[in-house]
């Protein structure tokens, strides 16, 4: 006698504690084993690209904040670089340094959320709160600079909206000293915990070739052992002046490119960001930060593609200008959107619990996927 078995279809999300927003996953299950995963997106679609066509160039900046809301500074950074490239603006030295410091602080803040929520996905709740405690220090720095904690509208075309708070550099220095031991604490509590390693090592292995074929970028690509970071390989702003390493995954606890590698690359990247911030604080010159801001942003007709290394990968802006104050088209290459595509490939043959581990390790932000 053979038992009649049936494929079970399980809807995970859009309201689910660990889909990191409003993502719906359609899981096809054979018992607890995944046979297929189909992500359904679009629950947070806000027509960013269409909206942008009706806005002037500076008006678009607050909209870019709202794409990847965990890395708002970096979204602004990428956008203004694209517009500046189109208009041929040279920005003052001090502005470059401020942007880099903000960008790297944002990278740490974003990775802290990624690592903390990843711990919560695996079932350890305490690291989550430890990470948010440390992120709070960064948000405070952003708050004294721009007045906002999440959506800053701080980096403007040709400069930044206003100069740093007088305490900012001192507080940032203090933060760097405070945060170094905290990374160690996180490693002791979560990274090298045997249960955590059992849950994440050898799970969701992404070989380098597959990663490149899918167009994966950012920490996910580096975890697969590919040393590709736009800050080094296609330097923008003043990243070529700093001395820092590009951490790559090496399969320390399992196979190269598994969930543990993706997690650990982010931990190591936070340490590298601290190095960049330290160097930038030492080198930052005095000067005016608003002098290069154009009074009227009206780029010449033409098109530009500019890309930056966002905490999640390659964030690209493709802007077509027809010479008017409104862009004709703004296309965003969102790293989360591209990275999510590989989910189905990674999940096949794993268990329901692993979907959560894999999804968390890809570190998506739905605001950026749906835009």
């Amino acid at each position, binding site marked *: 006698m053979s038992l009649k078995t049936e494929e079970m279809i399980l809807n995970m999300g859009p309201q689910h*504690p660990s889909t990191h927003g409003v993502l719906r996953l359609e899981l096809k299950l054979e018992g607890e084993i995944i046979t297929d995963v189909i992500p359904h997106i679009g629950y947070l679609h806000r027509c960013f690209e269409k909206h942008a066509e009706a806005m002037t160039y500076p008006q678009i900046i607050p909209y870019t904040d709202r794409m990847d809301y965990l890395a708002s500074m970096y979204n602004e950074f990428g956008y203004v670089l694209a517009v500046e490239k189109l208009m041929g603006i040279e920005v003052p030295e001090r502005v470059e340094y401020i942007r880099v410091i903000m960008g790297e602080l944002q990278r740490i803040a974003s990775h802290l959320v990624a690592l903390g929520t990843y711990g919560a996905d695996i079932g350890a709740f305490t690291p989550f709160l430890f990470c948010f*405690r440390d992120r709070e220090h960064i948000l405070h720095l952003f708050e004294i600079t721009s007045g906002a904690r999440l959506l800053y509208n701080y980096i403007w075309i040709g400069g930044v909206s206003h100069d740093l708070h007088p305490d900012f550099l001192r507080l940032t220095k203090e933060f760097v000293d405070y945060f170094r031991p905290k990374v160690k604490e996180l490693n002791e509590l979560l990274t090298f915990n045997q249960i955590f390693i059992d849950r994440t090592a050898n799970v969701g292995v992404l070989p380098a070739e597959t990663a490149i074929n899918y167009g994966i970028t950012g920490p996910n690509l580096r975890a697969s052992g590919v040393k590709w970071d736009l800050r080094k390989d296609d330097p923008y702003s003043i990243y070529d002046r700093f001395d820092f390493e590009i951490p790559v995954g090496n399969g320390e606890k399992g196979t190269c490119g598994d969930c543990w590698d993706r997690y650990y690359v982010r931990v190591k990247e936070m340490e590298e960001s601290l190095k960049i911030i330290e160097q930038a604080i030492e080198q930052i010159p005095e000067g005016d930060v608003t002098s290069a801001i154009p009074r009227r942003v009206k780029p010449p007709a033409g098109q530009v593609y500019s890309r930056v290394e966002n905490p999640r990968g390659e964030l690209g802006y493709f802007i077509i200008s027809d010479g008017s104050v409104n862009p004709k088209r703004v296309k965003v290459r969102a790293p989360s959107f591209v990275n999510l595509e590989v989910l189905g490939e990674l999940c096949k043959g794993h268990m329901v619990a692993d979907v959560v581990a894999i999804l968390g390790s890809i570190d998506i932000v739905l605001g950026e996927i749906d835009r």
Partner: protein
Amino acid sequence: MMYDWLYNLTGSEILAAVIQSLLPLFLFILPFALFAVLLERKVSAHMQDRLGPMRVGYHGILQTVADIIKLVQKEDIIARDNDKLFFNLSPLIVFMGSYAAFAVIPFSSVFLGSNIDLGLIFIVAVTGLVVAGILMGGWASNNKYSLLGAMRSAAQIISYEIPTMMIIIVVIMLTGTLNLYTMSEWQTSYFWNWLIFGGPGFGLAKFILIPFMMMSALILFISTLAEVNPTPFDIPEAESELVSGYHTEYSGMKFAMFFLAEYANMFAVSAILSALFFGGFQSPFGYLGNLFNVPALIPFEQFFWFTAKGIFFVFVQMWLRWTLPRFRVDQLMTFCWKYLIPFAFVILIIVGLITVLL
């Protein structure tokens, strides 16, 4: 003693026995659940650099009372496609299974529900009922997450009952009784007489037994812990995967019953561990009552030591819960079948040989 008094009061044997069995429940476990919820929130909060509840009463001590009032007021939602009979029955069975265990747990030499000779077997039997309740709830909820949670839970509880039973057999071989009260009496006076230190007496066997007893205590703690599902064994209600597992669909008082059962279980695990291996209600250093020649003081001291041991192990459970990540379902099974059961077997054989030969 207490039974005689109740018998005189009520004039009926059955009534006296029933009241006596229910006493620990009402006098201790229900208030304890309220306390444990608050303790858990405070412990987790301080481990996570937070303060925890601070608003209701001094440092939030009335928070759980407020929570219970809230839960009682909540609407009891029963969805159209739920299997109503089993859906309603499930929390009752889970609640009953967890709370019935306390009837035989000796809190002190006078304060124990019922002094039956099959105490240990009774505990294993009634807590086994919980599986049925969980399966019922998961099935009757008509929700895929609940079903997955219930299936995982059943597999987990049944697997982990095997090492639990093996260690219980080890204990029975050494103590020669299934009665928890006799077992506690046996490990009398000072802490070196506790079973974890090889039991009373100073023979050769005691010193050989010590390492095996420590391992047994650890295995018993882990496997009973796994039966009551806190992190790292909380895969049946793994929040990040299955929302709340088998009780996803429950609301109001029915949810509260699952919730209270969980906290009662936490204490039950600690109580069984301390009754078997840590001298039960026996004081580690002798009694003040003996010192000052006030025998009436002794039961109160015993009660104090039992709850102190219980709460200590409850604290250890919370500590684990807020430190460790969660196992995956297959890793949990591997851990049980490949590590705990073989170890328990080895201990069983060695302890058997020791009891026969020495």
